[in-house]
């Protein structure tokens, strides 16, 4: 058993768990935060995306015991019914989901992605390494391509993120 202190959505949790427990399973099976989803457990789908120390990661690809003292934000920390974040509201208004299973990962990913773009990070489709001036649809799509959606709400996901980013289409 490993003892790990995780700060999740501003609340400190003392986790006593097997060292094999991934951050994803720690959140879901130990802390009861089931908003973070397990789609593949192999880092292939992005459903488990959470924000650790300000960066989006696949929580299935990292062990909980590696995150002692880390600040973690999950979908539950971004907003709740009646007090949704701007991206969460935009996903509802633009129907940026269908079954809803990949959605928390999409929204955590988009939340961190907008910060990356603001910080001038370039992407595969950026024209230069200084990053884009504004997030085009292509930039949004590329930066969100690590989050699979089998319902294929992609056009609406792009609409929702564009709305929040205030970017030009």
């Amino acid at each position, binding site marked *: 058993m490993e003892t790990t202190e995780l700060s999740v959505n501003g609340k400190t949790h003392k986790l006593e768990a097997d060292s094999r427990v991934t951050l994803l399973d720690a959140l879901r099976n130990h802390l009861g935060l089931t*908003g973070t989803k397990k789609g593949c457990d192999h880092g292939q789908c992005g459903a488990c995306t959470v924000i650790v120390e300000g960066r989006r990661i696949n929580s299935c690809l990292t062990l909980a015991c590696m995150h002692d003292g880390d600040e973690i934000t999950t979908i539950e920390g971004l907003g709740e019914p009646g007090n949704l974040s701007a991206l969460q509201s935009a996903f509802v208004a633009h129907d940026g989901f269908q079954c809803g299973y990949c959605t928390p990962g999409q929204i955590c990913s988009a939340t961190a992605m907008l910060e990356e773009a603001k910080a001038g990070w370039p992407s595969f489709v950026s024209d230069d390494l200084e990053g884009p001036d504004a997030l085009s649809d292509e930039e949004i799509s590329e930066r969100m391509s690590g989050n699979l959606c089998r319902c294929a709400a992609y056009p609406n996901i792009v609409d929702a993120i564009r709305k929040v980013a205030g970017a030009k289409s």
Partner: protein
Amino acid sequence: MTAHQKMDKADSRNRLDDMVQGLVGSPMDRPDGPLKVSGRATYAHEWDVPDMLYGVLVRATISKGRVTDVASSYLIGKNGVRAVITDDRLLRRPAQGGADEAPPQGSKQVDYFGQPIALVVADSFEQARHGANILAVSYEAEGNAAFDPEAADTETDQPEDDQLDQGDLDQAMTDAAFTVDQVYRTPGHNSAAMEPHCAIASWDGDKLTLRGSYQMLNFNINELADALHIVPDNIRMLSPYVGGGFGSKLGISPEAVSAAIAAKEIGQPVCVALSRPQVFETTMRRSETRQHVRLACGEDGVLTGIGHECLVSNLPGESFYEPVTQATHFMYGGKHRKLGIEVARINRTCGGSVRAPGEAVGMQVLENAMDELAEAAGIDPVELRRRNVPDRHPEQDIPYSSRRFIEALDEGAIIFEWDKRNKMPGSLREGDWLIGHGMAGAARVNILSEAKAKVTLLADGSAVVETDMTDIGTGTYAILTQIAGEMLGLPADKIETKLGDSDLPSGPGSGGSWGAASTGSAVFLACEDIRKAIAKKLGIDEADLRLAEGKAGRGDTAQPITEVLDGTPISAIGHIEPGQTLEEMQQATYGSYFAEVAVNAVTGETRVKRMLGVFGAGRILNEKTATSQCYGGMIWGIGSALTEELVFDNRDGHIVNHDLAEYHIPVNLDVPQIEVVLLEERDEWASPIQAKGIGELGICGAAAAVTNAIYNATGIRIRDYPATLDKLLADLPGG
């Protein structure tokens, strides 16, 4: 009160159009949205069940034979392992959609590589997974397994009721002015819903509660009861949120039965979730197909004959087969017809329903062949299709119900500016990219199924809708809320829709695009009954009753519905049954696709630049969720066209690419900002709400628009899907 209607005749009253609340058809946000975007919707794995153990299934590493020993004794009692389940009731195969009884059981016999053969149960997931990984299993393999559906010595059979030989197609081909005679192949597909299959079983005496991820609870409890040898009344299944189905959760899968057996044996709740590779190996695959298409037409492009003869595969003993020719029977005319299905019996993962079984791959290929015929005859592809829309069913000689195929073609051509395209294949180039345009028709059979739903108008002026129907992302919560609100004159926030509980009045669940029209009709009928009761209280005709914004009355006089109810709730059960209209009319949904692609002249990479779909599916209940369904279908079409392919190793039949890194579903950047247009339509033969199914229509031919565009871009015909780079590289123009 029970309001019953059997669709023995058209319902042309269009009652929903008389209502004034303004909900039905509107692009209302999903009521389940806030829960889903905030991570508060409870999917199968996410219930807080005390003392829950974890089970992990063990897969067979042979393809055919018997399990002779499972060496479990060294595992049990150590490292948290509580039990190793090898019960004879474990499922060998998943249940087909609508099976209503247990699928083949007894996991000592192995039918395919990856089949579940045991369940390791432990205190924690990590302990169970480790136990499953190290469990030693001995086998006695049989050497006579078959893996290749096209091998000469593979046994095949032909389902008797799916063979048609009308007229003389051979002669029609000889006499034709223009013909197409080609063989096409489509690979196997996996539904790959984002939520892996999962079940939590807990027992209270003889009563089993199964929290799982299933599409058709009404059938699933019977499948589970039969598998466990208990009565259905002792089972309650809960699936309020389903993380995608696409056919893979129509029937129960191994996790349901193994969790239930383990929980009973150990005396604690057990959660069994499939790993992603297990989803690929132990749930359903769409069969690969070989499709021999023959088309014959005169100088005028009018078809004289159609041939569509297909080879698909499944495990021995499975009655399901991919119904590839389903839409070919009614889509186009032509007197001489030869349509048939042959099923190869092979030891691969079970074949079953994947989104739009039949049309998804059948229309895809038929619409490729139509493109080839258009070119051979020198007729515009849109015009060729227009000329071949039959007046009556070309085989059964029955009329069509509402069919907006020609409108979809014409409107699509205008919006897409089809007439401005470059018609010479391989001749439009922008830098390194070859640009091409293609189109295809869409069709999907329409199905109405028996459904019940209960609606209660409470004394406080709110209402509750209750049914065991599921919402697998389709928008059921939204549309049932809208129908009830429309009929009862209540805003959406006054309606609570409860779904996914087998204790509630039962319907057909989600599948085959029948859910919305079937359960929606049941809700409509229940509300109609409530309206009659209100009208009676007011002493007026139901036809004159105006219900809006929580008020009831006629004309300008209205009083709060709460006053009319005066403390007494009104409840009704609606009950819809399919009837003669399904037999007497050919019912289907139709549409058109237009696509623009760019094919890289150096690498052969294809990018879809633009895509339009125009669809007619009867009354649209929610413009927003219906559009989303169409996006989904069309994007599945992009996947089918370009990347999706189950790869099997024919030495042992195992799936080589059993995960999302190797089985390539479209990602965000693979998809342009697709345009969807929904045509105004009422199909009075389809249902009392004049709606038809729309969940699958979007995929039924979509891939063909993409590959027809690839032909226009490159001059290369893709007849062996998907259109990966290797299939284009050698013949790229100027390459």
